[in-house]
């Protein structure tokens, strides 16, 4: 790192432990407001930016938590000029964080896109976003203000799997937006066969802050292994809020677990965790890993005691089966069967043999799709069968202990 860059960071560091970070603002999302808050991006080289993101220990906020700098290096060293795609597809119905981020601080995301493009030496830069009216208007206006005609805005397909990296690449390449087989991974061969960085827009916003304030500032929050903050979509009281929290925060400080029997962590591809385990867990891969979960893309849904986990899970499985792209045999055949039996179980019509089928199919679809959709679906199913085991038995006997039948998890797309 050059001394000029560290001097810049030293001069402009805002409260390093202040929250929020990527959502920080005063309601002004225009360019003058953004510049008043953060200033211009420092004029440093791509390799200095790469080093800074590596030193910051930033990892992906799109769900998988992959080290960001490692991906940038792979793309930067690939064959030919790179492509950067900011991923704001946010196909997960239980997540709203990317939408809130984009419409709150569009210029921070665009700074991040610029930082990533410089770091990997990209000659094409795309923002792939759900084309709702608000996002489109905000992004269009932000790009006009920056007089930036380098960033292409491409509309994401409205589908759960739209944001999967190879589906993103397919859409940006002019295809229907469906996942494709790997290898090659998109960082090797992506858009038009070029090395492609597909990066969640929240990750890009954090990268922008690293560029503005430096890795030391970034590491002042979070844990040593998982520095920084992350955006969450917190459910409860039949509504949701998007919040930014320090990694390592106890879950009890984030959502009300008082009346909960279990918590869905990570979203529809996530894991049910019993409320007792959730009460002692923290928001980090390390802590949640000990209870079989990961923070995923930051969705946290407490399930109230009066609701039924079997019914809630079945509704989501029906949705997920309908979201299969129908390309891969095991996914095409397995997911609808899983959904049908889960629905029968929810309605008290399933037999122990059906349950055995369910478990066998779960094994058959895993790791046998072009994308991880079957794996994510099985993760949800398997954790439900485990955490709600007594309720599963009750359903096999044709009963359900729910007192409140209002849906917690949405089955709509």
């Amino acid at each position, binding site marked *: 790192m050059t001394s000029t860059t560290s001097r810049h960071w030293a001069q402009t560091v805002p409260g390093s432990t202040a929250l929020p970070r990527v959502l920080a603002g005063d309601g002004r999302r225009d360019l003058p407001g953004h510049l008043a808050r953060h200033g211009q991006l420092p004029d440093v080289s791509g390799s200095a930016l790469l080093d800074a993101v590596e030193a910051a220990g930033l990892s992906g906020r799109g769900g998988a938590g992959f080290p960001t700098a490692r991906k940038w290096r792979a793309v930067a060293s690939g064959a030919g000029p790179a492509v950067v795609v900011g991923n704001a597809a946010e196909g997960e119905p239980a997540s709203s964080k990317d939408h809130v981020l984009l419409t709150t601080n569009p210029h921070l995301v665009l700074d991040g896109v610029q930082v990533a493009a410089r770091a990997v030496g990209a000659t094409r830069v795309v923002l792939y976003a759900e084309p709702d009216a608000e996002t489109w208007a905000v992004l269009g206006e932000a790009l006009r203000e920056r007089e930036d005609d380098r960033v292409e805005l491409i509309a994401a397909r409205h589908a759960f799997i739209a944001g999967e990296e190879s589906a993103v690449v397919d859409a940006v390449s002019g295809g229907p937006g469906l996942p494709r*087989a790997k290898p090659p991974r998109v960082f090797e061969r992506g858009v038009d066969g070029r090395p492609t960085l597909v990066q969640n827009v929240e990750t890009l916003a954090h990268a922008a802050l690293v560029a503005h304030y430096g890795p030391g500032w970034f590491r002042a929050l979070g844990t040593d292994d998982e520095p920084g903050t992350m955006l969450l979509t917190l459910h409860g009281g039949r509504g949701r809020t998007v919040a930014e929290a320090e990694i390592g925060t106890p879950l009890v400080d984030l959502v009300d677990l008082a009346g909960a029997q279990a918590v869905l962590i990570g979203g529809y591809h996530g894991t049910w965790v019993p409320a007792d385990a959730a009460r002692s867990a923290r928001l980090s891969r390390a802590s949640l890993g000990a209870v079989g979960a990961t923070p995923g893309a930051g969705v946290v849904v407490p399930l109230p005691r009066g609701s039924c986990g079997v019914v809630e899970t079945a509704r989501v499985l029906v949705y997920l089966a309908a979201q299969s792209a129908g390309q*891969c*045999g*095991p*996914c095409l055949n397995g997911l609808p069967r899983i959904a049908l039996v889960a629905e029968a179980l929810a309605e008290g019509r399933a037999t122990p043999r059906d349950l055995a089928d369910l478990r066998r199919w779960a094994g058959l679809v895993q790791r046998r799709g*072009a994308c991880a959709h079957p794996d994510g679906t099985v993760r949800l199913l398997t954790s439900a069968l485990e955490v709600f085991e007594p309720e599963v038995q009750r359903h096999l006997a044709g009963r359900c202990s729910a007192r409140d039948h209002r849906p917690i998890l949405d089955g709509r797309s």
Partner: protein
Amino acid sequence: MGPEPTVELLIDRTRCVGHGSCAELLPELLTLDEWGYPSNPAGPVPAPLQRFARRAVGTCPVLALRLAEQPARR
């Protein structure tokens, strides 16, 4: 690692139509599930089977199989 090149048999699931002829040629490596789609163990193809694996690749009617020279990165 021996002198044989390490090859891995990859199935493009978006192409495979469950035709099953690959499993007939290479039952040591490929098994069909209850819907007729093949599975193979992860990792390199054992050297004595590589010849048959090549033949399976060549006979898949939808070109869903290929041999990759190094183990796939994930």
